[in-house]
């Protein structure tokens, strides 16, 4: 169980970061409707703010992400859901102008702590991207990439085993077991995305972040990925950003609705879709904008 030191929350909560960056709007950040906490949390985010240069992309977001649960993040384009996702594995660090404040802790450890190595963090918080991005290497090498750099396999047989189990869990083994040496880029779009998922679970992360993983796929490939998410949920915490509300309803137990950098409402997926408490959430899920 992880709790955030309260002084840390107070230190950054709702305040501007040093450097005098101005808020886009004069009123302070929105207070999230619904229960932001979760039982058995793996990631605990408190007062998270993200700035891209002068742009205040995420305002004061508080959210828990639980073990063995799928949480989906929905909201109109540019609402900050992908940005928030990229905070969770510090991928925003690779953008020179990005600045993150607040605290995010993984199993009780602040991931933005100076002692935390982002490289180790990303091995524990894996990520699947919007567009399938297999490396220009063979199917085998794509999956073996992570275990190799982290030295997870002692010898070739162990590596073979990791590759096989990862591909099996990603539901791709049957399709590629005869062509492990074929380039990963030669697979179909849906297969490529499952390859990327296999690549991610090969390093055995605790959390898997998925940034619109099906937006470049056809409905059949999408259905396969959604089935896969259902299975993966038994072992991992999964955060999925999606534009499809049906998808959010199908795969997730909790849903978070973002709007212009604010986390408007969090709740169980059933409640959000049947009985939204905030006007903006209701407008969005009934299709009035977005």
């Amino acid at each position: 169980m992880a709790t955030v030191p309260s002084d840390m929350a107070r230190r950054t909560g709702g305040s501007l970061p040093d450097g005098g960056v101005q808020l886009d709007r004069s009123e302070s950040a929105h207070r999230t409707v619904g229960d932001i906490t979760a039982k058995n949390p793996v990631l605990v985010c408190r007062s998270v703010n993200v700035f891209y240069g002068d742009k205040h992309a995420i305002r004061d977001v508080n959210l828990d992400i639980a073990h063995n649960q799928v949480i989906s993040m929905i909201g109109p384009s540019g609402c900050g859901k992908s940005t928030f996702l990229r905070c969770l594995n510090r991928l925003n660090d690779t953008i020179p102008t990005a600045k993150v404040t607040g605290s995010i802790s993984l199993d009780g450890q602040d991931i933005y702590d100076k002692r935390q190595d982002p490289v180790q963090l990303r091995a524990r918080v894996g990520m699947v991207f919007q567009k399938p991005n297999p490396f220009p290497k063979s199917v085998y090498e794509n999956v073996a990439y992570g275990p190799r750099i982290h030295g997870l396999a002692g010898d070739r047989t162990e590596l073979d085993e990791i590759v096989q189990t990862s591909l099996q869990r990603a539901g791709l083994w049957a399709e590629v077991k005869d062509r492990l040496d074929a380039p990963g880029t030669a697979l179909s779009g849906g297969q490529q995305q499952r390859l990327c998922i296999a690549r991610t679970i090969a390093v055995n992360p605790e959390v898997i972040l998925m940034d619109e993983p099906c937006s470049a796929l056809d409905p059949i490939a999408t259905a396969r990925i959604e089935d896969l998410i259902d299975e993966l949920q038994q072992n991992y915490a999964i955060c999925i950003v999606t534009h499809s509300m049906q998808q959010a309803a199908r795969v997730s137990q909790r849903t978070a609705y973002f709007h212009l950098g604010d986390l408007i409402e969090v709740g169980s997926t059933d409640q959000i879709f049947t009985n939204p408490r905030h006007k903006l959430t209701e407008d969005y899920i009934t299709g009035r904008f977005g």
Partner: protein
Amino acid sequence: MQTSTLVLVLLILAAVAYRAGRMRSLALVGGLKGASKLHSRPGYYGLLTALWCAIPALLVLGLWHAFDGRIVTDLVIGGMSAEVQALTPDQLSLVLNDVRNLVAGAIPAEMASPEARAAAARYVELQSLSGLAAAALCLSLALAAGAFVWLRISPSLRARNNVETIVRVALIGCSTIAIFTTIGIVISVLFESIRFFRQVPVTEFLFGLQWSPQMAIRADQVGSSGAFGAVPLFTGTLLIAGIAMLVAVPVGLFAAIYLAEYARRRVRAVIKPMLEVLAGIPTVVYGFFAALVVGPLLRETGESLGLAVASESALAAGLVMGIMIIPFVSSLADDMITAVPQSMRDGSYGLGATQSETIRRVVFPAALPGIVGGVLLAISRAIGETMIVVMAAGLGANLTANPLEAVTTVTTQIVTLLVGDQEFDSPKTLAAFALGLVLFLATLSLNIIALQVVRRYREQYE
């Protein structure tokens, strides 16, 4: 009439034709209000008339000038006495030169023979006649063609399409000039090389180990046997190019990796232009830098280490050439590395790879085909580079792999063979063409391979 005056008159005529064509098209539909009834906007009718007026006339003028000199000369010779006509072509050209000089006033009339004077007078007469005929022909052609189109103007004439066709043909013509020039150069080099290979066997040229292109002019001359084995030249070229690539590839590549992956934007904004300044330095400056600074420096260093270093060494030339090629390699490699999609890097970072692991295992392999293409282009530049090796590599055709000795290259030998007064049918001069052909074929094939490699790589991410 002077040609320049004639061209000016033609242009004025074209301007008049433009106005006439435009006015007529408008008049046919009852002024500007009816312009919508025309197929094209009025300006196109004017333009079409003007183009028809000017282009055929200018083409005829150009052709006339290409041939009138020969026709006039033939007519002049035809009017001269039988003895002159019986002369050999060489002597005939001497006589004709006299006539031309008389015309130009280069020799005083009293010094020439009466026959030459008569011929000169005839020459002048014919020339002015030719000028008048050209003017008459061109102007009448311009008027006829202009009038022809002007009369055909009707609201349904597809003037815009016609003008666009003419413009397209002109564009095609310009783009083929480069191709025809290349073909022309290749053919001329090829034919001269064939003449060379008639005197020196191809096998001796390509596989001979002795290069000494001095031919005996008189039978009793010694030490000028003339040996045309080009192997020492090829090895020298490859040695220097090899040293250059040893410098340029690692330095250029690492510079590119730093600039593309690690450098902050502000650092990059300073370093990248500075690297490109290196590419702007004239090669002759690199040449004397190599000959006056690097060469002596290497010799002194070698002496202090007990090594015999020639003051003109392959090493000096190769090092400086390598420095010259650095920006070439780094800028191409930089392009290739930046072309690797950010999603590749994100994917690697997302798996917990460090930046250096990402560069070594994902970005660099992905960019490798393009980088190889860039390196091949750089090699072809190193092989073709002339100024540095002329100044710093020496002339001695040593067959050696020792970079501390003086070697010579294909380009250096071409320069030395062709500098100064030469007969254009001795094997010595013709050897330059054969060397040029080899050089051309080598760089051409390297460039083709490189461009193929680069193109295939580009397709991968589109």
